[in-house]
């Protein structure tokens, strides 16, 4: 019991610390949210005409492109978890934490949860901007909640990846480079047009195996069509699979980082 309440306090403290660090360094979260909003505004402004093509089945392009903005924000935001661990490793604070009786899991969990908080605020903000631009969520408020949950799930998976990468390389440049996976993840998918409209066969193939496609599908289904089981189940399964992979990777890397031999 004592052990568990200590763990909760440790995790709370570590999360609080990382959250303070994020919000005191506006350069960490402002560029990220700007990029997401930029995507939303620019793609909507420049591409919304193509939603007149029959393959869009009358969907609003705003609802179609909004998930791209949210997912790119989620990836950027949760990538911050790894960055913050690298900073700890470089400025020696990580060692200081290891020298306390603090739970090792809490030390790694703190930045991840803080990243999730950042992601949540960001997603809500993008949704609000979307609503202000005239977005009509087919599944209503529940649909908005689903969008947030999917963003959080996908963000968690990416946080696991970035934390694992950070702990393995222990180097700011290397872990920065690791976030470049962002580009294939976001853009080699049904990013701008539905699957049927993708021209190149290779891109069709890649978008099929890209987990982001299923997250886009899940979000779009609640934004455009209302409640449909299949896309949501697929999105959930994909998120569970990649989360288990990246979080395992993160824990193995964490074990190595605190290894005493």
């Amino acid at each position, binding site marked *: 019991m004592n052990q568990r309440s*200590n763990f909760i*306090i*440790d995790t709370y*403290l570590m999360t609080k*610390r990382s959250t*303070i*660090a994020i919000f*005191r*360094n506006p350069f960490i979260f402002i560029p990220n949210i700007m990029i997401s909003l930029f995507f939303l505004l620019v793609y909507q402004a420049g591409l919304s005409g193509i939603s007149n093509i029959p393959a869009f089945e009358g969907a609003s392009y705003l609802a179609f492109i909004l998930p791209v903005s949210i997912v790119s924000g989620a990836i950027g935001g949760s990538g911050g978890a790894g960055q913050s661990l690298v*900073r*700890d490793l470089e*400025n*020696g*604070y*990580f*060692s*200081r*934490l*290891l*020298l*306390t*009786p*603090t739970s090792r899991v809490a030390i790694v969990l703190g930045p991840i949860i803080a990243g999730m908080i950042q992601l949540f605020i960001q997603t809500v903000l993008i949704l609000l901007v979307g609503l202000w631009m005239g977005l009509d969520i087919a599944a209503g408020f529940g649909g908005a909640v689903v969008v947030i949950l999917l963003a959080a799930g996908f963000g968690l998976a990416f946080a696991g990846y970035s934390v694992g990468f950070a702990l393995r390389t222990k180097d700011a440049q290397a872990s920065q480079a690791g976030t470049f996976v962002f580009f294939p993840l976001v853009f080699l998918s049904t990013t701008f047009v539905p699957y049927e409209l993708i021209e190149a066969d290779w891109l069709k193939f890649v978008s099929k195996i890209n987990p982001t496609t299923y997250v886009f599908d899940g979000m779009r289904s609640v934004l455009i069509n209302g409640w449909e089981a299949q896309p949501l189940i697929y999105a959930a399964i994909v998120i569970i699979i990649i989360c288990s992979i990246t979080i395992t990777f993160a824990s193995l890397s964490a074990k190595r980082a605190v290894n*005493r*031999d």
Partner: protein
Amino acid sequence: MSNQAIVVEDLVKTFKGDVKAVQGISFEVEDGEFFAFLGPNGAGKSTTIQVLTTLLNPTSGSVTVSGFDVGKDPISIRREIGVALQETGIDPSLTGRELLEMQARLFGFSKHDAKNRAQELLDLIHLAEDGDRKVGKYSGGMRRRLDLSLCLVHRPKILFLDEPTTGLDPYNRNAIWDEIRTLNREFGTTIFLTTQYLEEADQLADRISIINKGKIVASGSSQQLKKTVGMDVIDLSFQQNEDAEKAKEVLSSWTKDYRLTNGELTLYVDNGAYLLPDMVRKLDKEGIPPISLNLAPPTLDDVFLQVTGEHLEEKAVIKQEGVVSP
């Protein structure tokens, strides 16, 4: 009956690639003692401190800190010790006060107690006025002092300091010295300090172990160590190496022991003040007058020179200038 704060027996630490950082060292530190590990860069000081503070496991040998085994019960040890590593461990986006409160909370203080403790420590290290500024804005000396106070939050019985004054100016170095002296004398905190500065070990420590290339080469109080060298030390420097060589031949009958390094001849003699005029006269006659001479009681550098054949301070200086020694 005195209790042992630290007991190390045959500690070996080998890293991947068969790098033997520590090669079988044994020593004990008593409760309340001020103990220093003196040695050049790369001697194994930091590795030893990392093993003692539970950051690394020993490859072999046994290490007990405050009665707990480092391998079996690291968490109990962490509650008893405070550690200031060579690099300060500070998150620059927090304020000094926040860092201290966080540290106290991680050691199980309640919110209220953590607040009080943070204020106490800010007062102690004279940072009360800057307590609410972000640490990123602190000067190097302020960071060091904050770093030291972070180790003290939970009132540790044993304090480990890994080269606490490296890179500090004399003002800040003296401030740190005063603080650790006070901790040791007034609060009875056991102190384990590593340093590459002779003066630091000499001024502060009750007992010193000299470590070189992963092995302890001499141990004792500063006085005891200096006694092993002999009586006096005469340093003579010459224009050329050959002159020093020749001087050594000329003076050999008067000295107990000597060292020859780069045109510099160090002689260990009984009653140096009496012998020196005769020596200079003799050298003059031989046509190899020294360009400088110095007579002094032995220093810890002489002890180091005698047991390792090298100077300690030169190495330290080389390291500070960032020049890689061969």
